[in-house]
C-alpha cells in the first residue's frame, strides 16, 4: 500500500477528489452544485511556483469543487496559468494574452508583469489525475471512461466508494465495463475480501489479456487464498502465451515496416542501378535532398501558411520528386552519359558527386540536424488486437507500395516506360527506331533520382535530416537490389521485405548488432548460391 502511494504521488490528489465525489454522491448532490468553497488559498499556493506547492494546490482545487476548478486546472495544463504582481496573484491568460481573473474569468485591470506557473512531469500527472477525478462525473461519456481507466491504473482502494457510486449512476455500457474493470483491478489487491470476489475480479481482469492486466494480476497479495493465487497464475500464464503469439506477429509487422523503408530507399536505385547499370553511389544523397526539400517546404509553411502544416508532406512529395529528378537529369547529362559501358567507373564519379552534394548541403543548411515535423495524421498509434500499429509506420508502408506500383505501371504502361526498356535492352536498335536515347537516358536517371527524393520525404519522418542521411541507406539499398536480382523490380520488393522481416525476427534473439551482422552474412552466402540474386534473369547464355 505504502509503496503504491509512493508510486503514484499524484494519487493524493485523486483520492481526495474521489472521496469528495463519494460524499457528494451520498447526499445525491454534485460538487458543481455544492457551495463553492473558497479556493483563494489554493490559488495562493500556485504563486510560490514550487512543484510541491503546485501539486498541493491542485489537490485543494480538486477538493474544493469550485466550478472554476476545471478551468484553472486545464489552464495550468497548457501553461496559461500565470502569476505576478505584489503581492503575487494568479491569473488565467486568455485570448491575445489578456489576463483574466481565475474565478470570474473577467479581464483584470492594472495587469502586472507575469510569468507562467512551472510544471514538471509530477505536476503533469497530478493534473491528469485531477482531471480524471473531476471527469468521473463529467457529462461526456468519453471523459468518464478515461477517468475510470485512470482510476483502474491507479488501483487505489480509496477510490472504491466513489467508483461504486459512479457505477450506480452509470448508464453507458462502455463506461460501465470500464468502471467494472477498474473496480476489479482495485479489488485484486485489496485486503480482506472473499476469495470468490477476488477470483471473479481476477477473471474479469484476466479477460483483458494485455500488459496492464498482467501487471495487475501480478499484484495479487501473498496473503490471498491459494485458489485465488492459482487462478491468477493460470490467468497470467494464459495471457503470456497469448501475448507471445501476438509478439511474433508484432515482430513481423515491424519487419514489414522496416522492409518498406528499405524498399523506399532501394527502389530508386533499382532504376538507376538495376535498369541502367549505373553504380549510383550518389543515390543516398538523392534521398537526402528529398528530405531537405521536405524541411524547406515545412519552413515555408511554418512561416507563411501555418494552416497547411498537415498537408506539408503531400506538398513536399511532388516537389521533392521534381527537384531531385532535375538534379538527377543534370548529373546524367553532365557526367553519367560519358560513362555508359564503364559501369565500375560510374561508381567513382557518383561517389565524388555524393561527396560534393553532402558538403554542399552542409554548407547551405549547416551540419546539424534539421527539424521535420510529423503532421497530426501521421503521429500516434492504435491497436489491432494486441498489435500496436503506429500510424506513421503504416503510412510509410502504404506510401512505399504506392510508389512501387506507380513505378511498375510507368515502366509497363507508359510510352516513356516502353522506351526506357527498349533503350536498356538494345540501345542501337532503339535509336534506329527513332527513340531519342539521350533523352530517355536522362529521363530514366531523373526518374530514379526523383523516386529517391520521394523516399527522402518519407524517411524524413523517421530519421535524421542531416547531410549524412544518405550514407546510412546506401549500403542497404545496394544489398536489397542485388539480393532481389538486378534489373527486376519485383525482386527489389521481395528482397526489401524479406530482409526487413528477417532482420526483425533475428533482432529479439541476436540483438540489433549481431542480427544485422548475421543478415549480412546470410546475404553474402545467398549470393554464392544465386550469383544473380533472387529473381535472376535466365536465358540463352551470351558471350561475356
Amino acid at each position: 500500500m505504502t509503496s503504491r502511494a509512493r508510486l503514484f504521488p499524484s494519487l493524493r490528489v485523486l483520492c481526495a477528489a474521489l472521496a469528495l465525489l463519494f460524499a457528494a454522491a451520498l447526499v445525491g448532490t454534485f460538487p458543481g452544485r455544492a457551495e463553492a468553497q473558497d479556493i483563494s488559498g489554493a490559488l495562493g499556493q500556485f504563486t510560490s511556483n514550487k512543484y510541491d506547492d503546485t501539486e498541493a494546490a491542485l489537490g485543494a482545487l480538486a477538493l474544493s469543487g469550485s466550478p472554476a476548478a476545471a478551468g484553472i486546472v486545464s489552464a495550468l495544463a497548457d501553461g496559461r496559468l500565470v502569476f505576478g504582481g505584489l503581492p503575487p496573484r494568479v491569473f488565467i491568460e486568455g485570448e491575445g494574452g489578456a489576463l483574466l481573473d481565475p474565478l470570474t474569468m473577467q479581464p483584470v485591470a492594472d495587469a502586472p508583469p507575469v510569468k507562467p506557473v512551472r510544471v514538471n512531469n509530477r505536476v503533469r500527472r497530478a493534473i491528469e489525475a485531477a482531471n480524471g477525478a473531476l471527469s468521473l462525473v463529467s457529462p461526456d461519456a468519453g471523459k468518464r471512461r478515461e477517468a475510470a481507466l485512470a482510476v483502474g491504473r491507479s488501483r487505489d482502494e480509496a477510490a472504491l466508494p466513489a467508483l461504486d457510486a459512479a457505477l450506480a449512476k452509470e448508464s453507458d455500457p462502455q463506461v460501465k465495463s470500464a468502471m467494472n474493470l477498474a473496480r476489479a483491478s482495485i479489488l485484486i489487491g485489496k485486503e480482506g475480501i472473499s476469495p470468490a470476489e477476488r477470483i471473479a475480479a481476477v477473471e474479469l481482469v484476466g479477460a483483458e489479456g494485455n500488459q496492464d492486466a498482467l501487471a495487475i494480476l501480478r499484484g495479487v497479495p501473498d496473503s490471498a487464498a491459494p485458489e485465488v493465487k492459482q487462478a491468477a497464475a493460470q490467468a497470467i500464464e494464459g495471457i503470456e502465451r497469448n501475448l507471445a503469439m501476438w509478439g511474433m506477429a508484432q515482430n513481423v509487422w515491424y519487419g514489414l515496416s522496416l522492409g518498406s523503408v528499405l524498399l523506399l530507399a532501394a527502389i530508386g536505385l533499382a532504376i538507376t542501378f538495376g535498369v541502367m547499370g549505373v553504380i549510383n553511389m550518389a543515390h543516398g544523397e538523392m534521398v537526402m535532398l528529398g528530405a531537405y526539400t521536405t524541411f524547406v517546404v515545412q519552413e515555408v509553411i511554418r512561416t507563411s501558411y501555418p494552416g497547411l502544416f498537415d498537408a506539408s508532406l503531400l506538398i513536399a512529395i511532388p516537389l521533392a520528386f521534381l527537384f531531385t529528378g532535375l538534379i538527377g537529369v543534370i548529373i546524367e547529362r553532365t557526367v553519367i552519359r560519358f560513362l555508359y559501358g564503364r559501369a565500375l567507373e560510374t561508381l567513382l564519379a557518383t561517389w565524388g558527386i555524393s561527396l560534393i552534394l553532402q558538403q554542399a548541403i552542409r554548407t547551405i543548411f549547416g551540419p546539424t540536424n534539421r527539424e521535420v515535423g510529423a503532421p497530426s495524421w501521421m503521429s500516434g498509434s492504435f491497436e489491432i488486437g494486441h498489435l500496436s500499429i503506429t500510424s506513421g509506420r503504416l503510412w510509410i508502408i502504404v506510401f512505399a507500395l504506392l510508389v512501387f506500383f506507380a513505378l511498375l505501371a510507368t515502366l509497363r504502361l507508359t510510352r516513356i516506360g516502353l522506351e526506357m526498356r527498349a533503350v536498356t535492352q538494345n540501345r542501337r536498335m532503339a535509336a534506329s527506331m527513332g527513340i531519342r536515347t539521350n533523352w530517355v537516358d536522362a529521363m530514366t536517371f531523373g526518374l530514379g533520382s526523383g523516386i529517391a527524393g520521394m523516399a527522402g520525404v518519407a524517411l524524413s519522418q523517421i530519421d535524421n535530416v542531416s547531410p549524412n542521411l544518405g550514407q546510412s541507406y546506401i549500403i542497404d539499398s545496394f544489398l536489397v537490389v542485388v539480393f532481389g536480382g538486378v534489373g527486376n523490380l519485383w525482386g527489389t520488393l521481395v528482397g526489401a521485405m524479406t530482409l526487413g522481416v528477417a532482420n526483425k525476427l533475428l533482432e529479439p534473439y541476436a540483438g540489433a548488432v549481431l542480427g544485422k551482422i548475421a543478415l549480412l552474412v546470410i546475404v553474402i552466402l545467398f549470393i554464392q548460391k544465386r550469383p544473380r540474386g533472387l529473381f535472376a534473369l535466365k536465358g540463352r547464355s551470351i558471350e561475356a
Partner: protein
Amino acid sequence: MSITRQPALLGTSGIIFLAVLFAASVLVPVLNLAVAPDSAVHVPTYVVSLLGKYLTYALLALSVDLIWGYVGILSLGQGAFFALGGYAMGMYLMRQIGTRGVYGDPVLPDFMVFLNWKELPWFWYGFDWFPFAALMVLLAPGILALVFGWFAFRSRVTGVYLSIITQAMTFALLLAFFRNDMGFGGNNGLTDFKDILGFNIQADGTRLTLFVLSALALGLGYVLCRFLVRSHFGKVLVAIRDAETRVRFTGYRAENYKLVAFVVSAMLAGIAGALYVPQVGIINPSEFSPANSIEIIVWVAVGGRGTLVGAALGAVLVNYAKTYFTSGMLAPYWLFMLGGLFVAVTLFLPKGIVGTYYDWREKRRRHDDIPAAPLAAPGPAE
C-alpha cells in the same frame, strides 16, 4: 598496355619508381636527423610519419591494383584486409604496454580492465610474441580472403555483385568490431602504444625506421606484383579480366587464379595495415568503413588502373591533397575538391595519370597501332 609489352622485369617507370623510393628512404632520415631544425630543408618528424603513412597507403593501393587492374576484381572490401593486418599489429603493441597502462594491469589492456573483464580472451593469446603477431598480420587477412574468395569465385560471382558482397563483408566486420563485447576495444579501438620490439614508438629513430621499412615494403611489394603480372600466371589473370569464359574454355581454372591473386592482394593489404598502425598510433573499426575502401579504389583510378606505379602514385597524391586541404581556411571546401577530383578523373583521365602517359608514349612509339581497348571491367549487364 605496358603490362604485356615491357621486356624487362622492371619497366623504365618501375625503375624510376624504385629509385625515388630509395632516394626518399635515404634522404628523409638524413634531412630529419642531420640537418638543423631551422634549416629550410629540414624534414620535421611529423612529415616523416606523414610520409610513412602515405607509403603504407601506396602499398594498399598496390594491392588493390593487382586484383582490380589485372583481374578485374573490384573489391570494395580491401579496407577490411588492411584493418585486419592493422589489428594484428595493434594487438601486439597493446600487449607490449604491459603494466604501463593506466590501470597497470600486467596482462589486460586498459579497455578490458574498465569493462571489468577478468581474463584475456583466447584470441589475444600469443600476440605478445612478435613472430606470432607478424604471422597473423599475413594469416588473418589471407585466410579471410581465402574463404571469402573460395566461395565467391567458385560460384562465379563477378562484376558488381562481387563488389557489393565485398562491401557487405567489410560492413559486417565494421559492425562486429564496433561491438565492445568482441574484445577489440570497440569504437576506441587500440591505442596508447608504448614501444615496438623494445624501441620507444615515439622516438624519432623508431619513426624513421618504420618509414624506411614502409618504403622497403612498398618496393618489395611492387617488385612482387610486377613479377606476378608478368609471369604466365599474370597473363592468365589479364586474360580472365578480358574474357573469362574464353579462359575457362582454354582449360584454365579461372577461380583458382583469381583466388591466388585475391589472397596475395589481401596479404599485401595486411602488411600495409601492420606498418600503418604504429605510425599513426591507433587502429579503430572505422578503418573497416566501406567509404574507406571506396576511397582506396579512387586512389588507384587517379593514378592509373593496371599500372602498379600509378596506384602508388595516386595514393600519395590524393592523400597529400587531403592533408593539404584539411588545414587552414580551405578546410570547409576540401570535400568539394576531393569529390570534384574523382569526377574529373573518371571523365577526363579514364586511365589515370600514368595510364594516360603510357597511351601517349604508345602512340608515339607505334603509329600503325590503334590504342588498346579500354580496361572496362564487366558491369552488371553481363
